[in-house]
């Protein structure tokens, strides 16, 4: 379990992290979401014991990270931002170093290195110097060192940053496989990733927590949640006709697509379809909107309350 109590980190007068409090339980995959410079990495650095908080505390399984850093670190696997590693070492040498540093039993070191190399498909580059590897491989090396000791808590700072779509998918699959009984915290500014991976989302900006919800909960906050979008001939005419319906709160026409916002009463979609059949409009596309995470993110981080 991770408990964060009024965590603050200041650099001079600049507050990188400002009074953050939350608890994360086993089985949760928590996504840290926020613009660049929001304090995501700084928070992670304090959770992993790299930085000391200015005030407040972070507890890893009841151990205060600042007071008993080494003991707390034993429970954590950490992928720092940019996945740094010792470039002159081969993948295998590096993994052996990490395995020993993670205090894995002497007799199990070789096994755990082999296992993690296989798990992350690093077999073909096992004897190559890390600095000669492609970005995707380097990232996988970073992930491998984070999970080699099968930690209960996994903290990953932008794990898929700079990867191509296939590699992203692969890494997400890996994270999902490990998620069952662990605590995983990932930071990202890729919104789709949060929806794909996390069961809890925190939006952070300027060091402050602005939202703490499930991905679905956030999407539900969207203006577009349960809205209906359609592409139709003579959209202006249709828009004014549909605006008369009691279920329609407003209409928006953008790039030839007409979006109708719900009033809160259910049945907007049914009412719209009924109107279409009745008036025999020529509709070429019609869909029910789930909500748009990017719009919610934008509204929240710009300091406006989400609609």
């Amino acid at each position, binding site marked *: 379990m991770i408990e964060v109590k009024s965590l603050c980190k200041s650099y001079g007068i600049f507050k990188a992290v400002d009074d953050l409090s939350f608890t994360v339980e086993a089985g949760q995959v928590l996504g840290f979401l926020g613009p660049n410079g929001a304090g995501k990495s700084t928070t992670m650095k304090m959770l992993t014991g790299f930085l000391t908080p200015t005030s407040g505390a972070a507890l890893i399984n009841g151990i205060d990270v600042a007071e008993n850093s080494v003991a707390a670190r034993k429970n954590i696997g950490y992928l*720092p931002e940019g996945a*740094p*590693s010792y470039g*002159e070492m081969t993948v295998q040498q590096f993994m052996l*170093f*990490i395995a020993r*540093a993670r205090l894995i039993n002497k007799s199990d070191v070789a096994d755990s290195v082999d296992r993690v190399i296989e798990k992350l498909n690093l077999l073909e580059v096992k004897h190559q*110097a890390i600095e000669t590897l492609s970005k995707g491989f380097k990232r996988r090396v970073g992930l491998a060192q984070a999970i080699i000791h099968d930690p209960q808590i996994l903290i990953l700072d932008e794990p898929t940053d700079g990867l191509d779509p296939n590699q992203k998918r692969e890494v997400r699959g890996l994270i999902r496989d490990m998620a069952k009984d662990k605590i995983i915290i990932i930071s990202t500014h890729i919104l789709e990733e949060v929806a794909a991976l996390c069961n809890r989302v925190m939006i952070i900006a300027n060091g402050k927590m602005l939202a703490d919800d499930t991905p679905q909960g956030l999407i539900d906050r969207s203006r577009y949640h349960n809205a209906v979008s359609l592409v139709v001939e003579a959209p202006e005419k249709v828009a004014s006709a549909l605006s008369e319906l009691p279920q329609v709160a407003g209409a928006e026409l953008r790039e030839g697509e007409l979006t109708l916002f719900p009033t809160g009463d259910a049945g907007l979609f049914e009412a719209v379809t009924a109107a279409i059949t009745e008036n025999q409009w020529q509709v070429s596309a019609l869909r029910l909107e789930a909500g748009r995470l990017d719009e919610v993110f934008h509204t929240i981080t710009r300091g406006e309350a989400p609609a």
Partner: protein
Amino acid sequence: MNSTINVMRRELTGYFATPVAYVFLVIFLVMTGIFAFYLGNFYERGYADLDPFFRFHPWLYLFLVPAISMRLWAEERRSGTIELLFTLPITTIQAVLGKFFAAWLFIGMALVLTLPMWITVNYLGAPDNGVILAAYLGSWLMAGGFLAIGSCMSATTSNQVVAFILSIVVCFMFLLSGLPMVMNLFNGWAPQIILDGIASLSFLKHFADISKGVIDLRDLVYFGLVIGFWLLANVLILDMKKAD
């Protein structure tokens, strides 16, 4: 203990995975040779000893040891691996000691590779081998002192060139503190106890004492204290500013 050895082993592997180790070893051997034979008149003197060889070690170390130590921490900072290192369950002391011992052992290796000099002088005459052994020990201890200073300086920056220059300056002051050009600055106004204190800080004096073949406990303690002091400063600097 295991963590210290692990860090040390990683560091040593790093030396030999890059040209650093080989370049250093070759330059060290060539330079010690040049100094001993040309500047030290190894043959012309007609004595069977290694004094011309050891006499130039302090000056060689002044440049070569900072070249080894400059990357110890500056490189970790530049590449961001410092964040990896200090989120592993390794204490700062273990990491500092591991890196220091790696570099110290490496210089020890370089010294071992000069053994043909020792063999040669035994072939040419009958030197006092006890004195030579003591001088080797003294040289290695002095290298440790330089190294501890260099390691500490390397921790202050992420730029290896800055680390290199800072190390040379501080090492230079420690080297010269017993010589007239430093002592004359203090002569005449500073009380005798301070003069003695400054003079006793000199690497040169303590190294000269040991290389005469007299292994005095005070000289050993001196180098031990120098190494301990700078490594402690190294730990404190890292603990105070790990990031940036």
